């Protein structure tokens, strides 16, 4: 479990790193936290001839909210930094991101692993990939020819493959709007493992705050009466396909059904379970994964609405 020989390059800036990647071609890999790549290299499943380390670059970490209410997270931000971000940086509108971090590996992994690394690695059950798909995030990539923004829906192509070009570096992920009624939950045999199935929802109650400012929990209007229906809903699943997927049938069921409550969530979860075609593998049969979907989608809805 020692990696094959490689040449190590330490990048001074994004542009330099991108130029280097363009020069080195397919033989090069970007490394930041190294939490997935190093393990693969130690197994010699990955054998890059060159590593371009962007870990030391400045300006690629941290969270900031722009004037339009979108949350920008630098690619080098660690999972732990998100998990521990203070409310003035990560408000109630994005609490789902903070809460989801408890599912990412274990503490040592969260203190080294980066948001950008997780997205670029593209594991089908990774929490960041699921959140990006759920919340219509945009991924900002910079290459020798400049910057481009890739919608999450077009970013993930399948197992460990993404829209990133070999010479591009993921620099930022942008979550365009607050999602005060969103939640992510998952199940694995052991805590900290990649999920057998993960489920995330983003709900917009008709009587909830429309386009709520990211202003923290206080001052949020309470959900009262009003028939209890959803104006819009997003449901996404991990661990059921080669990439995280939205489940339009379940989203439709959430908007059409009502009033909201455990009964609706159970119905919607059942719709979700029947709308996907999960694989059978060592972690669980398709049948078992459907059982998990029924449980987890309902739990996610309840957690989202309890915010």
């Amino acid at each position, binding site marked *: *479990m020692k990696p094959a*020989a490689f040449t190590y390059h330490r990048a001074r800036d994004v542009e330099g790193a991108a130029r280097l990647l363009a020069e080195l071609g397919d033989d090069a890999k970007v490394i930041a936290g190294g939490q997935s790549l190093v393990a693969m290299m130690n197994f010699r499943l990955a054998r890059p001839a060159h590593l371009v380390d962007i870990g030391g670059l400045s300006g690629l970490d941290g969270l900031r909210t722009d004037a339009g209410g979108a949350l920008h997270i630098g690619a080098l931000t660690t999972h732990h930094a998100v998990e521990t971000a203070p409310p003035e940086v990560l408000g109630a509108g994005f609490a789902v991101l903070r809460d989801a971090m408890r599912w990412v590996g274990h503490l040592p992994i969260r203190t080294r692993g980066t948001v950008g690394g997780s997205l670029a690695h593209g594991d089908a059950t990774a929490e960041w990939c699921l959140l990006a798909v759920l919340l219509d995030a945009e991924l900002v990539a910079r290459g020798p020819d400049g910057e481009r923004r890739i919608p999450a829906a077009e970013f993930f192509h399948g197992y460990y493959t993404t829209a990133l070009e070999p010479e591009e570096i993921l620099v930022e992920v942008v979550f365009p709007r607050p999602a005060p009624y969103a939640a992510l939950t998952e199940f694995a045999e052991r805590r900290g493992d990649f999920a057998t199935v993960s489920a995330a929802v983003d709900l917009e109650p008709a009587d909830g705050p429309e386009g709520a400012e990211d202003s923290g929990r206080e001052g949020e209007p309470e959900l009262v009466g009003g028939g209890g229906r959803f104006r819009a809903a997003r449901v996404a699943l991990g661990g059921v396909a080669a990439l995280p997927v939205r489940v339009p049938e379940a989203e439709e069921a959430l908007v059409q059904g009502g009033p909201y409550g455990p009964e609706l969530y159970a119905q919607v979860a059942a719709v979700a379970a029947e709308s996907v075609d999960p694989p059978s593998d060592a972690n669980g049969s398709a049948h*078992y994964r459907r059982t998990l979907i029924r449980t987890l989608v309902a739990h996610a809805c309840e957690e989202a609405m309890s915010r």
Partner: protein
Amino acid sequence: MTGPTPGPATPVRREPGEPGKSREPEVTAPQGLLDEDRPAETARPGPEHSGHTAPAREDRPWIGASVGRREDPRLLSGNGQFTDDIDLPGMLHAQFVRSTVAHARITALDLTAVRQVPGVVAAFDAQDLSLADITARLGRPLTEFVPTGMPVLAREKVRYAGEPLAIVVARDAYAAEDGVEAARVGYDSLPPVVSEEQALAPDAPLVHDEASANTLLDVSMFATEGIDGTFDEAPCVVHVETRTGRQNALPLETRGVVAGWDHREEQLVLRTSTQVPHQVRTTAARCLGLDERAVRVVVPDMGGGFGQKCVVGREEIAAGAAAIRLGRPVKWIEDRKDALTAAFLAREQHYDVRAAFDAEGHILGLDAAVVCDMGAYSCYPFTAGIEPLMASAEMPGVYKVPAYRVRARAVTTNKAPTAPYRGVSRPQYVMVMERLFERAARELKLEPTEIRRRNLITQFPYTGVNNVTYDPGSYLESLNLCESVLKEEGWYAAKETAAAQGRHLGIGYSCFSERTGYGSAAFAQRKMEVVPGFDISEVRMDTSGALVVTTGTMSHGQSHETTLAQIAADELGLDIGKVRIHQGDTDRITYGWGTFASRSVAIGGSAVRLAAGKLGEKLIAIAASVLEVPPDELELGPGLVRRPADGRTVSYEELADIAYLKSHLLPKDTEPGLTATASFDVLNDGTFSNATHGVVVELHEGTGQVEILRYVCVEDCGVAINPKVVEGQTRGGIAQGIAGALFEQVTYDEQGAPSAVSFMEYKVPTALEIPEVSIHHLETPCAFTETGAKGVGEGGTIGAPGAVLNAVNDALLPTGVELDDTPVTPQTVAAALEHTS
């Protein structure tokens, strides 16, 4: 100077956290317990004892105290030295070319390209090194046991994916792995034998040509007369068939060795992570064709072993041979991938067992068939018989079983070979027995605890149908206490409440005893050709009155540096700070059997006490000469010898001064120096620790998750030398037992390729999956050991699977589904719960 009694002879309950504080006995003494007033010489039917000279009780504060681990300061501050921490001048690094297929004839093995890889210094295959095979034997006829040689490096044939073919030695571990990749191996594939069913199928391909039907051991034992009639006529017959998953003992520190030739001593020094230093020495000498004195095994700090390191590893020998050939030290550290796929494994067993009961729930007979999938080779020195022989000899366990029949087999398959793993078959057969009793209780409409009470052995000593004699224990008392704890805490009520809410709570128990301190008699009964049993201890006091105790046992996490020091300190009235334990160096003790089978405190601890006692006699003899009084007027005190009659004392320092520096003052027949050596063996059936485990689980319907809500263990290991250490052993053991019951399984694909190659697939539980365990102590002192202690290393692991599985099945009762195979995974539980209306 009569010997001290080890403690109250009735089992007494100790509160958790109050070690050594005895309360009124809450249970009555089972008959047959020894009268504490009888002198030790007659009370102890063990081997011949030296006269004890131990100080008065008040000067012996150490046994029974939760002394902080003396290992901890260095380990917790990063100053431990493990095998991988060793870095010698000129040291090279080894890795092994391993078979990538499960079963094949080797048509070619070309290391030319390996030797050209930059950084590679040498590569050797079996032909280059020509080492003798490692062959484990039993003294049984070929109809019962077939010996099969295990080559240090495979030649002609490979028998599992991961089998070592060649050793590559390089300037660093990276280059060594590059070299491994460059090896060219030609295979002529043979059909793989991947399961017990395939092994036993007619016309199955043979793993070893000499072992027909792929059977290495086949014994039928006991067969009580009339047992068939018993089953025919019994009002209740229950059946359990179970398959238990293959497991890896998984020490945190993987196996490893640093081998080097010492020119001054003309000796190969193997610094290796092993539980059995002397067996490695004996085997290495034989394989290498050296006199045994030309091999020295030194064991650095160890990060666990659990049995995986109580057998001789092929890699240790190969690294030694390479070091001799190259004249440079060679280090091999097993990486985690090899540890998961190519190290010694354990536990894959198949039980098919029936039990007959009368209408009142008394067991009438037990009829068992056991098949153990031992993988590709017999481990040395225990052989592939280790698991089936343990299961067949001891299955009746804590119950009064009047009739018994068992057939036990070891089959060989194209999977990594197996070694003893903490508990050795007992986690499985105890689970089977406990499932049988639960099942009978259901059929006979008895409380599961009540049917056990009707069958537990309560009269001691008890000789079972399996010809094993059980020394006194607290079988019934531990069950009663465990049950009352769960009742008092309200778990029975909680279960009813949960059921009313549609939730699935279950309560399960397991009762067992564990033979510890296997002496040579017990191993000889298994017909081992290499018969472990005794251990030797040497004590040496220096001129400063400090004591070095050398032991043949080998702590790999069990805190022997603490507990053995407690024993020696008490025996000589020394402060524990004056006692240092030395272990793991074959040049410093005549011979030792290391640490396995919960033997160290029972046997090694007894040897320590005897040796210290002998030294005490010598101290008294010298003091008698100094004080000019007869020795029997003297006694040991704290660091001194005193004469109670007039209060005169001589300190150990003064006595040591005479023994070493003023030897002209020694009595005429006394040799200079202050040393003593003693050996100890258990000459009967050993001593049985016992425990009851009680578990409450909740099954979660939407995920199938098994959540352990409560875990209670009532254990009795006789005199607990260090209660905190006992609890540590118990908790760690329980974690491994839960791992087997719910999480871990070594898996293979149809071609015999390992499919659990990392911790993503091999699901060792983490601290987050293991519940808190509360431990209650009972104490039935052992009459056969010098301290009253019984072994405690394995009990936790033995008790957990049965209790967990019974709790799971109790929760599943409304579904009508029963789960008997391990591990019980969430997917299995979720499927079972679908049967809930």
